[in-house]
């Protein structure tokens, strides 16, 4: 055993020596060229992975904007500008309420996210079943930059989730074998079998390249970290696949609008378990 270790150590020593001597003989000019090349690679990567998807998205939004009547900002006085802002806010509220009425005709529980009042609401047939306070809201730059007028028409909803990633199960089923006799039954039924409680993180993705992520506000992770890690892995994989698809398919959108909210863990669990598999979500900004 010790012979094997010493031989491995010797090999490592030999390789490191070769590496050291190889690197030490590289002329400075080559080192500079190497770094310039790496910088060029980094720039190309920034264009391909960053600028290209964003540019395509901005172009499509700009085309949409061009189809709407234009305005000249300079003509507006301060008070009129304030009025316009109020009207747009009010119209957005109206659209949100109309969506709520529209959803009352469906047979599914829906999720309303009211960012203005910081509320996440479960609604069924127009009746508010559950409300919880949103403790933190974050958008990515794409959503932040969109004017309210566009948020309303493009990223407010109602949307049906096409994909979802979650750290918890929808149905926490516990399997129990039937006891053979009363003795075994007494042992089995002594204490109720409760489903394992874990941390709550989930994400809904929609067809319009938007995602809504709901994250537990508690920082402490309960139980094992495995569910949290699995969620993170699944989310990264989903993002990777999207980015890869963008590079391969010409019609694929490369930019994802991300909205993330934090709510208490148990409330987040209640919302996730109450919603159907592909839930409908409406957002009020």
């Amino acid at each position, binding site marked *: 055993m010790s012979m094997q270790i010493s031989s491995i150590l010797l090999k490592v020593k030999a390789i490191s020596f*070769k*590496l050291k001597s*190889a*690197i030490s003989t*590289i*002329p400075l000019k080559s080192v500079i*060229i190497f770094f310039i*090349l*790496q910088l060029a*690679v980094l720039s190309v*990567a*920034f264009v391909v*992975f*960053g600028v290209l*998807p964003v540019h395509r998205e*901005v172009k499509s939004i*700009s085309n949409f*904007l061009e189809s*709407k*009547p234009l*305005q*000249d*900002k300079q003509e507006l*006085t301060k008070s*009129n500008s304030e*009025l*316009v802002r109020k*009207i*747009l806010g009010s*119209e957005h*509220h*109206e659209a949100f*309420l109309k969506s*709520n*009425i529209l959803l*009352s005709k469906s*047979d599914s*529980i829906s999720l309303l996210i009211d960012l203005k009042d910081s509320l996440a609401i479960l609604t*069924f*047939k127009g*009746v508010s079943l*559950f409300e919880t306070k949103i403790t933190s809201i974050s958008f990515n*730059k794409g959503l932040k*930059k969109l*004017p309210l007028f*566009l948020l309303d028409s493009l990223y407010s909803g109602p949307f049906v989730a096409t994909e979802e990633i979650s750290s918890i199960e929808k149905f926490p*089923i516990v*399997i*129990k074998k*039937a006891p*053979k006799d009363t003795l075994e039954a007494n042992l089995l039924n002594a204490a109720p079998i*409760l489903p394992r409680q874990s941390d709550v993180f989930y994400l809904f993705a929609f067809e319009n390249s938007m995602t809504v992520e709901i994250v537990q506000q508690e920082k402490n992770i309960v139980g094992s970290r495995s569910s949290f890690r699995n969620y993170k892995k699944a989310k990264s994989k989903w*993002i*990777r696949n999207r*980015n890869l698809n963008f590079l391969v398919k010409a019609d694929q959108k490369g*930019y*994802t609008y991300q909205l993330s909210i934090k709510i208490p863990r148990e409330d987040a669990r*209640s919302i996730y*378990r*109450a919603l159907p598999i592909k839930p409908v979500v409406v957002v009020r900004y």
Partner: protein
Amino acid sequence: METNIESLPKSGKTNRTKRAIVFLLSFSFTLALVSFCFLNSEVFKEVAMSFYSYPDHDGGLVEKDSIQLTKQFVSTQKKVVILQKKIESLAPSNPYLIINTTNNTFVLRTRKGIIREGFCSTGSYTLLDAGDSLQWIFKTPKGMFRVQGKLVDPLWVKPDWAFIEEGLPVPPKNHPDRYEYGTLGDYALSLGHGYLIHGTLYQRFLGLPVTHGCVRLGDDDLKEVYNKLVEGSRVYIY
């Protein structure tokens, strides 16, 4: 990279090995850099997005003067109030019950406010496997239900699973062993398909998912729910 390799002295096997090592290292570094960039595309996109902006769009409102704008604002506000009232009217006018099967809580309320709230017990999501394709899943159904009947001193007619779960032989239908008084508490409200809102002997389990699909309430809560809900009252379970 080529310059890098070319510039190395070509003197025998050692130099070739050195060049190969340097080339391999440089190539691996470049590959790692590309992979790193791909994995962090979202950061790149956010940086790229900061270079773009959209003009403010007022949806054609700019052409209007302050009087027209004020009128439009008042009109939209009115519409909002009308819609809010319409949504409020969607909630039942009579008392109704909302049950949360995840937190095992209930709220008895009217349009105006909460009458009573507290803990309940709902389906355990246990799958009882008795072999020979005999399986039961104990979950509380979700959706909107109506109270179909109200019972005082309800009698529990024990189904097959109740015997199997206790490790007892299943008696034939209408066998006296199937009838049990007192287990369901003082009152029961039927939601249809055999699902009931009833009382419990296991008050310590309130707040936990332990039932076979029915909703269990504590004695005082059950009395209030029984008194407030009438036949046809709505029960929302989520």
